[in-house]
């Protein structure tokens, strides 16, 4: 029982870590970013690349990779998404074209990495980080990486929630999500704000990629796909734009999945996320932690 709770907590951290950046870009940019899984995979891949050629510890590898992935996402925004936002007549049209553009970008990244790794799965060398199992008084066990992810997730969630809620930047971000034109009139540089949001979202993807590459001890081109669909479920459960909601959603899904495996029909574990999406959207379309009631219907 205690072990199942510990497992749920570490799985939940994986989900939340992945979902936070996606939730941010969805709520601020109206971008359902299907390339997010590819960004995450790039984080993992660069962790492998940098870690193999440059024998330093995680403390040095992590920031380098995070900066690289954040830079690629800003580049994608400058080259593609910014233009789509500008030329779209209605929000719905920009949503759709950005969605398809992100499919294209994901295909590019995944194919390049697939070719670079020759379709094999790689791993981040132990010189970067050595995974050990910690025993907590015979009650439950966790690896040191799982513990780090749990702490990082909690800290990041709190920091991000505080920034979005109380800082000047966070206020501007929430404003732009609702009405970019009015915010421009009030002196918000919306393009710069969008770029910053994209950069933060990309950095989160990179961070999640590095930590998960070490945790799963495998790096391959398609590693983002299964997490991407789960992340959608988490965002729907929590309510779009709610940081706390994403955190609660992630842990909720993890608990539901873990306990289904332990006590229920294990085969249906992967169906839970989708069943939750359907139920939440039909019963409470605004999510458990709704920010804007009118937004979904």
């Amino acid at each position, binding site marked *: 029982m205690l072990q199942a709770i510990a497992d749920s907590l570490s799985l939940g951290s994986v989900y939340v870590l992945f979902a936070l950046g996606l939730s941010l870009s969805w709520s601020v940019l109206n971008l359902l970013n299907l390339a997010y899984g590819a960004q995450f995979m790039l984080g993992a891949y660069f962790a492998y690349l940098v870690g193999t050629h440059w024998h330093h510890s995680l403390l040095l590898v992590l920031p380098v990779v995070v900066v690289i992935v954040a830079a690629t996402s800003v580049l994608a925004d400058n080259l593609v998404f910014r233009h789509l936002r500008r030329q779209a007549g209605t929000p719905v049209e920009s949503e759709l074209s950005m969605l398809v553009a992100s499919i294209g970008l994901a*295909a590019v990244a995944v194919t390049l990495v697939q070719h670079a790794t020759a379709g094999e799965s790689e791993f981040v060398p132990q010189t970067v980080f050595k995974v050990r199992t910690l025993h907590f008084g015979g009650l439950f066990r966790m690896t040191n990486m799982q513990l780090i992810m749990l702490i990082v997730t909690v800290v990041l969630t709190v920091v991000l929630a505080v920034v979005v809620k109380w800082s000047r930047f966070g206020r501007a971000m929430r404003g732009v999500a609702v009405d970019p034109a009015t915010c421009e009139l009030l002196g918000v540089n919306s393009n710069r704000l969008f770029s910053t949001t994209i950069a933060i979202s990309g950095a989160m993807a990179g961070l999640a990629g590095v930590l998960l590459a070490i945790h799963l001890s495998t790096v391959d081109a398609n590693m983002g796909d299964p997490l991407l669909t789960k992340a959608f479920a988490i965002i729907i459960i929590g309510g779009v734009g709610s940081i706390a909601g994403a955190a609660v959603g992630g842990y909720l899904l993890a608990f539901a999945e873990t306990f289904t495996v332990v006590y229920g029909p294990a085969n249906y574990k992967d169906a839970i996320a989708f069943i939750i999406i359907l139920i939440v*959207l039909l019963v409470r379309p605004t999510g458990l932690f709704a920010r804007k009631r009118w937004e*979904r*219907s």
Partner: protein
Amino acid sequence: MTHYFHENLGLIQQTLVYMILAISLQVVLRCGVVSLASIGFYTLGSYTAAILLKHGWPAALIIPVVVLAAGLVGYAFGRPLARLRGLYLAMATLAFDLVIPILLINGGNFTGGALGLYAIPVSVDTWALVGIVIVAVYAVSQLERGWMGRASLALRSDENLARSMGVRVTRERYLAFAISAALGGLAGSLSAMLFHAVSPSSGGFGLVTLGLTMAIIGGRDSWIGAVVGAYIVTWVPEWLRSIGPYRNAVFGVVLVLVILFFPDGLLGSVRKIAPMFRRKAASA
């Protein structure tokens, strides 16, 4: 010609099936209803057809049964889903699409588990397929004309305005859902009849992105766009085969470029440019 036809028969059949799938998505997108449920109905349709074929039903009976059943289920589905908008509807229908393969994997002997069903008797020839595609496409093209066509466009650009002009918004949405589901089921049942096998992995996330790509890059305002999109998505990767491993990357770049430079889809841009030439010709 016949040689070329035989050599590429598989691809030609695939294109035709995709055309129906593409118009099934386009029908809803045109009304501003971002529903991806077609893919789920495609999967359900393909399994239903496969199981019925194995029980010895004739194809001529299966197709109408599947189309009708999918349409009715789609109509029923439309009711609770009709109040969701934009990306939320996309998410709900995506969840529907992705939950079906998992149920099929756990369906035991009835659905063949993770392997799916195979050795399905091939029961539609290419000319019948061409006929079905023409009928389906013609039916959809008629929906785009007259009162119905204008109503669905109005629904997309401003729902409240459409309502005030006497468009029965909710009914139009249900209808779009039902038609889209019926077409999705049709495409699925045809794929089961043509390609011997159905598997749970054939209708997952990959087919969702593929279908969406087909419906968008051609231009979603008209059935022609969907037909063109289906053609491009099936054949461009084939032409790019010579560049080998980078094929999908190039396809991704092409996709992004089309979205960037042809915001209304290829067809939409042609429609915008064509009058310019005509005016020049008239004034000259």
